[in-house]
């Protein structure tokens, strides 16, 4: 409970004694590149295989004489949009971006760079953390959209290459009784998860004390706590929105 209180106070501090808006703009752009563009490769790789494996496993478990082939792509589509792309990619995001945020801020803390900002009269939490959170919220939904597209494409390639489903059946299944609400649902999850990962990781890094060992611990805690929070939020959002 004490940590939860500190976390809330930390979030409030992001909006106090802010610098001029023009100060944040280049920082946000820079963070967008670091958080979004630099995560693109791992997101694409994970998504491609995620879609491919989902297709093969669904084909292995579901398809029989009474079940049409296009069910495979219905399952891939719904699983990707509802769960795999937002949630699994959020966990990957926590591993890559979350640990990076915690490590960066933790190192800045133990090398007194954060103290240097405070002495200059800069609100260090706002200056360092707010751009990271804003960039995460801007970039993660884009990563989720790209991930969903690539996962479905991966499923198409895996299905076609192994001949478990024809290309025409796959596309028919993708279009069959599509519920458009799945897209805003995935995006809501993306916004929430982006905030969770960036804020929890920043909190862990910002309050690092000690040396290199503690920076490592902060990075680990950032990933662990973010993953747990993502799973809890995932359940709550599914309960509320579906």
């Amino acid at each position, binding site marked *: 409970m004490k940590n939860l209180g500190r976390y809330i106070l930390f979030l409030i501090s992001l909006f106090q004694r802010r610098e001029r808006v023009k100060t944040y703009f280049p920082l946000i752009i820079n963070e967008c590149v670091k958080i979004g563009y630099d995560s693109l490769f791992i997101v694409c790789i994970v998504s491609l295989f995620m879609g491919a494996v989902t297709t093969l496993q669904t084909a292995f478990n579901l398809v029989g004489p009474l079940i049409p082939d296009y069910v495979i792509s219905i399952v891939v589509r719904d699983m990707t949009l509802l769960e795999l792309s937002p949630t699994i990619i959020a966990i990957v995001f926590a591993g890559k971006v979350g640990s990076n945020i915690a490590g960066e801020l933790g190192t800045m803390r133990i090398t007194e760079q954060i103290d*240097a900002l405070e002495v200059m009269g800069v609100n260090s939490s706002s200056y360092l953390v707010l751009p990271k959170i804003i960039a995460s919220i801007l970039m993660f939904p884009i990563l989720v959209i790209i991930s969903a597209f690539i996962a479905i494409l991966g499923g198409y390639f895996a299905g076609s290459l192994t001949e478990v489903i024809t290309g025409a059946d796959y596309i028919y299944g993708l279009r069959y009784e599509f519920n458009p609400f799945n897209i805003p649902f995935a995006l809501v999850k993306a916004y929430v998860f982006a905030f969770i990962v960036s804020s929890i990781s920043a909190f862990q890094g910002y309050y690092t004390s000690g040396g290199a060992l503690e920076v490592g611990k902060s990075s680990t805690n950032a990933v662990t706590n973010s993953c747990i929070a993502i799973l809890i939020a995932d359940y709550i959002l599914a309960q509320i929105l579906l």
Partner: protein
Amino acid sequence: MIEIKNISKSFNDKQVLFDISGKFTKGRTNLIIGASGTGKSILLKCMVGLLNPDTGKVLFDGRNFTSGNKQLLTEIRRDIGMLFQASALFDSKNIEENIKFPLDILSNLTENDKIEKVNHCLKLVGLENINKKMPSEISGGMKKRVGIARAIVNDSKYLFCDEPNSGLDPVTAIKIDDLILELTKKLNTTTIVVTHDMNSVVEIGEYIMFIHNGKKLWEGDNKNILKSEIEELNKFVFSNKLMKKIK
């Protein structure tokens, strides 16, 4: 001038500073000395606002830094420059961006004026043509100089230095001491240096406050420190063989 009045600080149940008072005058190098773990850096952090003292006041030219007035706090902080023990340069910025940073945040100067000021400060600390280098590409002594340049770039009235020559070889350490003394005279700043280096004490100690176990035990200058009769101070001052021989 900076004045501290009855500063006390404790962490949980452990008191680390006991009722410390003192005056640090403008235009001279004021040293806070003592062995490691005596509370020097804690006192410095209380003075620059990184820690809140439990009791007492810190007055910057009569302005109460510990009053809780946020506007005043921001105003005073903009007059403070600080050199950290490990220089605390921003890893992601090059030397020019590091020194320019306070100007980017606090001033309305044009980009050209900022660069001009950065180059002027680099010249003052004896470094030139390293603007585009990253902190990881320069030596420890150069990092300290860049740290000093960043501390004075905003025309700071108050210069704080936390162990400015720790980790440096004796020759570079003396150069850094001389630089601090020179800048204090040239820019007429109120300079406070926390150190446990006896070379610094002898070289630049125009006012010295000795702290032992969180208490102020002695104050004076580098001329009369060697004549003190306080046992703890003598143990500190004459801790090495060279100083014992001098004695």
